[in-house]
């Protein structure tokens, strides 16, 4: 196997490990905020590693660019989603008055 393939294997394995961490966090952590914290960070790092590993296998730069695009949009979506769900949970618990609807 070539160097790029070894790197790709490493990135994919690392990505799978991050996904596993995220799922364990979602299942085992106490409280919504802790679970939110575990999931949104670990999973998107995992997706980034998987995308990197696949980009190293890709035949063309276009494929690599599309993988980067998917990851970029995923990052924005995950950031905003985490923000929205955290606010929702805060408001649901009758939280502080500082979180307007």
């Amino acid at each position, binding site marked *: 196997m070539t160097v790029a393939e070894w790197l790709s294997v490493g990135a994919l394995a690392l990505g799978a490990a991050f996904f596993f961490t995220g799922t364990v966090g979602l299942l085992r952590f106490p409280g919504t905020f802790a679970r939110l914290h575990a999931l949104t960070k670990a999973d998107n790092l995992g997706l980034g590693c998987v995308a990197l590993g696949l980009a190293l296998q890709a035949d063309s730069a276009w494929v690599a660019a599309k993988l980067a695009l998917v990851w970029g949009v995923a990052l*924005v*979506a995950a950031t905003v989603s985490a923000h*929205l769900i955290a606010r929702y949970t805060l408001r*649901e618990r009758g939280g502080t008055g500082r979180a*307007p*609807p």
Partner: protein
Amino acid sequence: MIDRAFDLLLIGGMLGLAVQVVASRALFRSVVLFIALGLLMAVVWARLAAPDLALAEAAIGAGLTGALLLAAYRALQPAGEAGDAEPAALPRRWALVAAVLSGALVAAIGWAVLGLEPPAASAGREALARLGESGVKSPITAVLLSFRAVDTLAEVVVLFAAFLGARVVAEPLGRAGPGPRPDPAGGEPVLMPLLLRVTVPMGVLVAGYLLWSGGHQPGGAFQAGAVLAALGVLLRLTGRLQPVAETSPAERLALVGGIVLFSAIGLAGAGMASAVLAYPEGWAYTLILLIETGLTLAIALPLTLLFSGSAGLRWRGR
């Protein structure tokens, strides 16, 4: 070996999820499981090498239907109640009757399908063999807009009729849809404008890409229309598009334009080409792309308006 294991796990997961969606007593649990089912369904289509269906399933099954169910759940939830409301259960004997009847129906259909003779020459093979006559390179688009164009036309008419029907029902109620967001400028999460600035242009780009893709690879009007509809839902929920009681002339044009264009080109085919809904020699690709553009709008707008529960939408920026 490993792909067999993947497929078996996928099948097992699908069946388990399907049972859970129906059997779960908590309403919100069913909603989330339904979204998971839609996502897994997209993976199933991917495994069956049907990316067109995977695209449609991801956009409509998981995306639009998921958003519709979530919004409906939220809108119905009483304000003081934080927990997961249990739905009123059907009495056990009626549930049993329904289960036995639907089980018998499934068994009867299964029996009938198993009894069918496999056709010697399937229409799919003939469509693949005569792909060159259609003017496009994607076999799916060739079937949808050339070989079986009449089905596609009827489907869009059905969608339009569904929209009209929903309007007739919703009008006297006066309270369909998620209700207007009073003021997008005040009290909005700080990251929401960022999300819209990324998602909306990206979504329009992806819709255009899918529309153009339809000619030579998986994609087409239905997928592009579903993406635009999802963007409409996003803008509607964030108050950028406000529901109004009047359908504007531009909206009317978009609602019926695709159908009128498709029918007009189809009827012209009777004179200029061999038959109704046939395309003149050499013009097929151009006309198909034109029709698909019209259909994209004719699919996106009714879906957005059905979600919105209003007759029209008006832009209201910040």
